[in-house]
């Protein structure tokens, strides 16, 4: 079932066109990755979805209806973790619920319940600075998930981590996703990450315009270490490489 429809969306800042005529769909329960060069407008696109920015043209529909102005059906995980240093882990995780009007107590209770499955048991009262980079990303992800929105938007969720921690967290995300019904839109500039995480990879062109292309990644391809040696992966990566370059 199509959950999200983006139709011919465009956005400009002053004299600079950043996005133009971007269209795509996202189905229920699917992970879609969007890749593009730095500055191609990936973060801007997410901001259009969350409502932090407004499109200059085009339309975004959710479950068949136009997006509401407020209380949009998204939970957003930003490019860096954006944890608030003065809030302990559980307080950081609960902030989305608090903003939505859930009582502090209730918000924290719900966040606390997820600490264990997110591998954050025992960190409840730590401040963000007392966490490792990987743990911080988990808290950030938890903060998004606990809002229980239909769609999760992830902006380069692991971009700030070193390759090995990133590998751990990708694996962990895939496991979490397998056990849930989440619909995820994930932005990245890393082709390998996109292929590993996504059902479909959309390529934003370097110069504003319609998507440069789309590559489907079969669910049959193993996403763990097995992926490294799976012969179906290299052609996909090569195709995405080509798309990225051609678009530029």
């Amino acid at each position, binding site marked *: 079932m199509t959950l999200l429809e983006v139709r011919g969306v465009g956005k400009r800042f002053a004299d600079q066109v950043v996005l133009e005529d971007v269209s795509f769909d996202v189905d229920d329960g699917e992970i879609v990755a969007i890749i593009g060069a730095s500055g191609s407008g990936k973060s801007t696109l997410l*901001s259009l979805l*969350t*409502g*932090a920015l407004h499109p200059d043209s085009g339309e975004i529909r959710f479950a068949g209806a136009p997006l509401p102005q*407020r*209380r*949009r059906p*998204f939970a*957003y995980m*930003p*490019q*860096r973790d*954006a*944890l*608030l*240093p*003065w809030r302990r882990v559980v307080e950081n995780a609960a*902030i*989305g619920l*608090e*903003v*939505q009007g859930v009582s502090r107590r209730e918000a924290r209770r719900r966040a606390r319940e997820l600490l264990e499955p997110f591998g954050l048991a025992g960190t409840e009262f730590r*401040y*963000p*600075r*007392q*966490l*490792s*980079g*990987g743990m*911080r990303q988990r808290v950030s992800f938890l903060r998004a998930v606990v*809002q229980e929105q239909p769609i999760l938007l992830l902006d380069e969720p692991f971009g*700030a*981590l*070193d390759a090995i*921690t990133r590998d751990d967290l990708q694996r962990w995300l895939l496991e979490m996703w397998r056990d849930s019904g989440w619909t995820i839109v994930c932005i990245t500039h890393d082709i390998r990450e996109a292929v590993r995480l996504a059902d479909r990879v959309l390529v934003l062109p370097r110069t504003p315009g319609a998507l440069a292309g789309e590559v489907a990644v079969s669910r049959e391809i193993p996403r763990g270490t097995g992926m490294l040696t799976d012969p179906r992966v290299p052609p996909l990566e090569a195709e995405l490489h080509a798309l990225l370059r051609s678009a530029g």
Partner: protein
Amino acid sequence: MMRSVRRGLFATGGSWSERLALIAAPTIAFLLLLAAWQGVAVAGLVPAEMLPAPTRVVSAGAAEHTALLRHAIPTLIATVAGFALSVSVAWVTATVLDFSRILRSALLPLLIVSQTLPLIALAPLVVLWFGFGLLPKILLVAFVTFFPMVVGLLRGFAEADPEAERLLASMGASRATVFRLVRLPASTASFFSALRVSITYAVVGAIFAEYAGAVAGLGVYMQSAKNVFRTDLVLAAVGVSTLLTLCLFGIVVLAERVAAPWLRIEQGRDRTHRGTRS
């Protein structure tokens, strides 16, 4: 201004021997200074009315400690009251300015210019306008401490993580909510840093007002001591005012430790490490 200094004396962490060195070194330097001063005074190079020996300043101060105390109290009250006024008005002002770009660009330059006014010429006018009570003292203390507070708070608000603000906006938070949940707490470090700067000026501001006209206070005491040629007592009063300032400074530092525990936490290893990368 005092931020980098804090990394020294008030730094978190550090081994015990390091901390000892941080206390011992300035103490030794201070004692050397006193010794040099004592030497000059004892050698009789300058007469005592011009530069009394530190021992004499201390003994004179001790002998007059009741008078010093009596005059220290009004100064302290004026300082604390003026500072409280300044800090609360600064919060309100900075909040309003943070919300309005136009007001900010209209008023900040005026605030800067206000800093260039020679207080010494204005203090008598303030006393003329507001009498010899607590009010002119409070106003002058507020005047000298207000600007660092407002600027510190504004900078603090601006230090908020824009990504965190965008995140909250995406959750449907209003501008006021974003301010309350992100910008306001983000300013804590900068707020306390401004507080430390301001408090060093606060006592001096009160003494200023007392010079222009007051019934009691360290400024009044200094003036009387000067007029009976008791330089030793002037310096003893200067010492008391510096002690007052240092105590208030210490209280601010303590308040910061209690109110903002997260500021004292060393960055997690991972994060520090990543931090060096951008």
